[in-house]
C-alpha cells in the first residue's frame, strides 16, 4: 500500500533529480530514486542538431528548395515526413496550398506548389513515383493552358511543362520494369496521349507568336509517347506469351524489407 508521505517525498526527490541537484532520498526511497536516475539517462533524449535545423527551417516557412533526400532511409523518411506534414498543415489551413494550387510557373506560390510535389514524389517509390511524375506533367499542362494569351506567363509555363515532361520521361527510363507493368504502362501511355491531344488543341488556340513554343512542347510530348510505346513491348499488351495473364503490380520489396530481423 502506498503511503502518502512516501509519495510526496518521492515527488520532491524527483524534482531534485530533474533539477540535477545534489540527491539525497529517505531510506525507503533510495532504491526508487536510484532506478529513476538510471531511467532518466535512458528516457531523456536530445533532439539531434541536424534534425532540429531542418525542423526549424520548416517552421520558419522556408521553402525547402535546396532540399535533397538524405542518404540514409531513416533520415530520408524523416525529411519526407516533414515535407508531408508541412503539406498537410497547409492543406488544412487551406490558404497557401489553395492559392498555390492555382499558381503557375513564375507566380509567387508556384514554389510552394513545387515543394508539395517534391514531397509527393519523395513519398512514392518505383512505379508509383513514375506515374506521379506524369500527374505533375498534367498539372503543368493545365497551367500552360490556363495562361494561354499571356506571353510571359505562357513562356514560363511552357518551360515548366517541358521540364516536368523530361523528368517524367527520365523517370520511366530510369525505373527498371516500369513499362513491364501493364497497368502502369497503360496509365503512362494514356497520360502522354492526353498531353499530345491537349497540346494539339492548344496549338490551334494560341496566337501565332506562341505557336513555336507550343509546337516544341508538342514535339517533346509526342517523342515521349513514342518512347513509352517503344519501351512497352507489344507482346506485353495484357497477356504474356504463356497466356497466364498480366504481370503482377507488386514491386520487388526494397532491400530493407528483406533484411533479417535483428
Amino acid at each position: 500500500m502506498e503511503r502518502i508521505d512516501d509519495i510526496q517525498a518521492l515527488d520532491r526527490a524527483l524534482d531534485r533529480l530533474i533539477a540535477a541537484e545534489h540527491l539525497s532520498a529517505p531510506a525507503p526511497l533510495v532504491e526508487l530514486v536510484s532506478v529513476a536516475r538510471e531511467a532518466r539517462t535512458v528516457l531523456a533524449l536530445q533532439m539531434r542538431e541536424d534534425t532540429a535545423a531542418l525542423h526549424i527551417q520548416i517552421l520558419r516557412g522556408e521553402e525547402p528548395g535546396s532540399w535533397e533526400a538524405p542518404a540514409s532511409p531513416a533520415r530520408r523518411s524523416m525529411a519526407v515526413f516533414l515535407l508531408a506534414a508541412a503539406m498537410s498543415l497547409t492543406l488544412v489551413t487551406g490558404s497557401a496550398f489553395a492559392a498555390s494550387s492555382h499558381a503557375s510557373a513564375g507566380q509567387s506560390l508556384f514554389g510552394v506548389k513545387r515543394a508539395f510535389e517534391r514531397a509527393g514524389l519523395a513519398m512514392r517509390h518505383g512505379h508509383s513515383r513514375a506515374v506521379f511524375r506524369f500527374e505533375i506533367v498534367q498539372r503543368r499542362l493545365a497551367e500552360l493552358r490556363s495562361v494561354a494569351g499571356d506571353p510571359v506567363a505562357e513562356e514560363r509555363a511552357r518551360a515548366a511543362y517541358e521540364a516536368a515532361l523530361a523528368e517524367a520521361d527520365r523517370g520511366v527510363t530510369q525505373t527498371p520494369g516500369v513499362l513491364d507493368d501493364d497497368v502502369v504502362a497503360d496509365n503512362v501511355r494514356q497520360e502522354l496521349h492526353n498531353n499530345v491531344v491537349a497540346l494539339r488543341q492548344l496549338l490551334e488556340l494560341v496566337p501565332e507568336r506562341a505557336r513555336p513554343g507550343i509546337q516544341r512542347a508538342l514535339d517533346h510530348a509526342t517523342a515521349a509517347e513514342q518512347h513509352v510505346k517503344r519501351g512497352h513491348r507489344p507482346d506485353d499488351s495484357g497477356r504474356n506469351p504463356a497466356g497466364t495473364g498480366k504481370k503482377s503490380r507488386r514491386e520487388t520489396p526494397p532491400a530493407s524489407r528483406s533484411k533479417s530481423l535483428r
Partner: protein
Amino acid sequence: MDLEAAIARARAGDKEAFADLYRAFASPLLSFLASRVRRRDDAEDLVAQTFLEAMRDIARFDGDAAGFRAWLFRIGHHRAIDLARRKDRRPEETLDAAENEPYPVLAEDEALDRVERALLWEAVQALPDEQRRVLVLRLGSGLSSAEIAEVVGKRTGAVKALQHRALVNLVKALGVSKAPPGSL
C-alpha cells in the same frame, strides 16, 4: 528565454518565435514521443508534426507557458495515436522497425551498458500505459507533477501516485537492487 514573450510573439504570427519555442520544447517532447512510438525517427517526425500543428492553431491557444507545454504535449500524444493507427493498418512497416534502435542510446553516459539500457527501456515499455506515460513525462521530459497533470488531465496527486507506482513496478521488473541504502 522568456517563454511567455515567445508565445505571445508566436501568437502574433512571428515564425522565429516558434523556432524559439521549438528549441525550448523539442527535446522534452521527443523524449515523450519516443516512448509512445518506440522509434526515434518516428518520434522526431511527430515532433515536427506537433509543432506544425501548434503553429497552425496558436491563435486558438490562450494560456501561459505551462499551459502551452501541456497543450503541445497533448497534440503530440494525439499524433502518436494517429501514427499507431496508421501502422496498424500497415503492418508491413514492422519489418522496417527492426532497422531502428529499439531504445535510445546516450553518448554522454557510457557507464550504463547497452544491455542494462535495453532492460530498463523494455521494463518501462512494459509498464501499464498510464504509469509509463507519467514516468516518461517526469523523467524523460522533465515535467513537474503539476505540469504532467495538465498534460494527462489528472489531478496532481494522482500523477504523484502513478509515478510512485511506476517506479515500484520498475524496481520489481528489473528484479535487482540498483543501489545500496545511502549510496546516492
